[in-house]
């Protein structure tokens, strides 16, 4: 998880304005020697506590079960985000955490409350779609993979053909040589 600090800022800003934030702790995306795949719920709890400690997570953590019931229900991706409104409807989903986008959506819902308070008529709920480009600091990625262990780095290299923390420029250079 490389997005804890910006998401924490949003939590501190919007939680007093009527939003709940949670991190749902799921399977280890890159199991390694130090933090292996889960084999028991006790181990899962221990590693979730380690996440809380190492990343100084202030946002409350919810634990999924060992079968990944919630994770499967929402789409199985490692860093996906959902915003759910008070009717239980998905109002935003993203395949990767992007704090800027989440902030935009929180502001939309604050505006909606304001419109409702002022009895502004709403014609209908509209839908928009977009691609977004997510920056990732390679130093953050390297820190997380090294935390997991050499196995996690080897597994990624085997699966993808490059190091997990290679920047796009490094990947491009490697392709050209």
């Amino acid at each position: 998880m490389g997005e804890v600090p910006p998401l924490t800022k949003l939590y501190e800003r919007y939680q007093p304005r009527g939003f709940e934030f949670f991190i749902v702790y799921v399977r280890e995306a890159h199991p390694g020697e130090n933090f292996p795949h889960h084999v028991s719920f006790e181990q899962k709890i221990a590693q979730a506590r380690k996440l809380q400690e190492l990343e100084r997570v202030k946002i409350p953590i919810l634990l999924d079960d060992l079968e990944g019931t919630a994770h499967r229900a929402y789409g199985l991706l490692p860093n996906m985000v959902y915003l759910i409104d008070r009717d239980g409807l998905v109002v935003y989903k993203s395949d990767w955490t992007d704090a800027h986008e989440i902030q935009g959506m929180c502001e939309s819902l604050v505006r909606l409350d304001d419109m409702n308070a002022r009895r502004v008529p709403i014609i209908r709920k509209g839908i928009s779609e977009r691609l977004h480009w997510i920056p990732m600091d390679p130093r953050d990625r390297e820190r997380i993979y090294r935390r997991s262990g050499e196995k996690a780095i080897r597994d990624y290299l085997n699966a993808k053909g490059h190091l997990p923390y290679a920047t796009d420029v490094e990947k491009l250079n490697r392709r050209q040589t």
Partner: protein
Amino acid sequence: MAEQTEIEKYNYRDFVSSDFLPFRAHLPVGSSAPDCQLILLGKNQSVRLSDYWIKNDLVVEFGSLT
């Protein structure tokens, strides 16, 4: 070699690259969010997502330590 259980397949031992494409069609915006039972870390308390979304808008990030 014994067949892997569903729990073992889900909690893979070696990194499996995620397929991001199916996510686009999964739970489209405007659909009802699945209500799931989860454990609140630190309080060992069983909660449902709907316990929260019934009162407040809810931001949920899925993640792990690695």
